[in-house]
């Protein structure tokens, strides 16, 4: 059964900490006990192998035990966090959710039955093999969210290889491929996860100090906020060994500053795609954006500058979109990359590329350069249509302290001119007070026309 290997690991680590939640610590024995209770509860509630069950919660001990029991039962699990509240109804409908287990802030649970019948052919494939499934939603930054179905028996296979044991903070969300990866990596090594309710720099730093966190998996946007907040000065973060980052392009200035602030921490780029899973990756060094990705079960190739991946544990398909794989089974990531021997550098999403009179501009590169400037808190680079050159590069900037718009614009353009080709220099500069990241700590880039 899909989680038997985990139960074996739990049994070996019975008295060890498994989860720190709301200031309380739960050990692996607690998880084992609760897991068996959940198996019984699931059977008694009418949930069958193959049922689609929405797990509404976060990394709470009870939700994690239920998650494992649903997998063992052979259910299709749809994790949803409160961050998805605006899309919840739509997503439950798309996933054909038959039941919801709703976990409250105090980790109490409510079972709801939905009027849906799970009849999608992808579920049929899984049911036939008696495999549990996982449904995740793409962020939908470009259009409608896609419902991605994974075969959990295959996805969990890579966790059967034992790796290092680290106390890890679960920053990435429960319904995100990176969050799922963090959870199963920790459980499969008998490690402890430290959960946080509030993902602000202050709360995260406090949790690191209090619970001796060793691995911090975050997004570059969060690292920017951490640098600007200077909260790292107020806490003892010496337990940190690794900061892993992914989900969006890392600005060079942010990486450099992080390496200065955390000289004893190894900074690693992670590469996860909801459709493919998280690949093993190795950064050239802590200050380098060059990364080697792959690992067992993954092959990579670059076609027309775009990264393609073939994975044994790739999703089986979308519930609400056509199959995106090439005939020979490769997945087009849509990520433009530069290649240097075995290393790759992620330039940005092909869909976010700005075409200025035939020249390509990736917003992330320009944002990285602007972020090097004094008095810049946050920046988003986007395109506006222009009849002369097709599109023009625009920058929306939030400043730390007030500065005259004209003076700042001149300063920004001169800085960019010294670092970038002329067509990459923003033409229009807008100063804003708005924060430019989503609740999921990813950059909002929906200004593009």
């Amino acid at each position, binding site marked *: 059964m899909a989680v038997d290997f985990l139960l074996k690991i739990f049994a070996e680590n019975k008295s060890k900490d498994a989860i720190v939640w709301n200031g309380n610590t739960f050990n692996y024995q607690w998880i084992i006990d609760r897991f068996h209770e959940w198996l019984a509860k699931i059977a008694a509630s009418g949930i069958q192998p193959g049922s689609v069950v929405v797990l509404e919660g976060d990394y709470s001990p009870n939700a994690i035990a239920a998650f494992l029991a649903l997998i063992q039962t052979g259910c299709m699990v749809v994790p949803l966090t409160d961050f998805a509240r605006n899309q919840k109804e739509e997503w439950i409908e798309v996933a054909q959710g038959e039941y919801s287990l709703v976990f409250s802030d105090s980790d109490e649970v409510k079972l709801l039955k939905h009027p849906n019948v799970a009849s999608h052919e992808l579920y049929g494939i899984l049911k036939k093999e008696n495999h549990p499934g996982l449904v995740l939603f793409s962020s939908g930054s470009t259009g409608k969210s896609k419902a991605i179905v994974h075969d959990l028996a295959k996805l969990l296979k890579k966790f059967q290889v034992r790796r290092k044991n680290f106390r890890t903070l679960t920053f990435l969300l429960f319904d995100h491929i990176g969050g799922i990866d963090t959870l199963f990596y920790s459980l499969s090594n008998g490690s402890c996860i430290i959960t946080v309710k509030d993902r602000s720099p202050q709360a995260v730093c406090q949790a690191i100090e209090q619970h001796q966190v060793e691995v911090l998996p975050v997004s570059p946007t969060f690292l920017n906020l951490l640098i600007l907040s200077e909260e790292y000065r107020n806490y003892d973060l010496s337990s940190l060994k690794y900061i892993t980052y992914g989900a969006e392009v890392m600005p060079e200035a942010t990486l450099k500053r992080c390496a200065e602030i955390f000289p004893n921490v190894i900074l690693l780029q992670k590469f996860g795609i909801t459709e493919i899973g998280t690949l093993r990756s190795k950064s050239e060094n802590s200050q380098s954006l060059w990364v080697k990705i792959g690992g067992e079960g993954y092959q990579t190739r670059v076609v027309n500058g775009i990264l393609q991946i073939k994975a044994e544990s790739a999703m089986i398909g979308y519930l609400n979109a056509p199959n995106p794989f090439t005939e020979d089974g490769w997945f087009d990531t849509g990520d433009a990359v530069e290649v240097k021997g075995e290393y790759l550098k992620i330039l940005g999403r092909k869909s976010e590329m700005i075409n200025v*009179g035939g020249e390509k501009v990736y917003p992330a590169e320009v944002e990285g350069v602007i972020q090097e400037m004094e008095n810049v808190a946050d920046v988003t680079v986007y395109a506006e249509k*222009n*009849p*002369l*050159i097709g599109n*023009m590069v625009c920058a929306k900037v939030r400043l730390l302290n007030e500065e005259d*718009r*004209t003076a700042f*614009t*001149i300063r920004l*353009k*001169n800085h960019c*001119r010294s670092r970038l080709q*002329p*067509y990459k*220099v923003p*033409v*229009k500069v807008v100063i804003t007070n708005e924060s430019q990241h989503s609740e999921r700590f990813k950059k909002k880039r929906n200004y593009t026309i």
Partner: protein
Amino acid sequence: MILKEQLISVIYQAIDEVNAVLPPDQQLEKSIHTVLFGESGKLDSLGLVNMIVTTEQKIEENFGIAITLADEKAMSQRNSPFRTVESLAEYIPQLITERQHA
């Protein structure tokens, strides 16, 4: 009613801002006869786009009116409104009038 002289002074403000980021050989002179784009003009296409967008921003800052200078209408004029400082100053009131009647 915005006077042509007021518009020229606003265009000069835009020239100051654009000059601050242009290389020495592309600096624009503050004169109504200065060629913005075309024969004997110093700006390349990116320079012109910068000049246009900066002028739009200056008009908004000075008069509180948001206009788009470079659009299909501008491209379809018999005489390019972006030829000289003077032709630009003569084109802007048309846009403002249209905007006010829209």
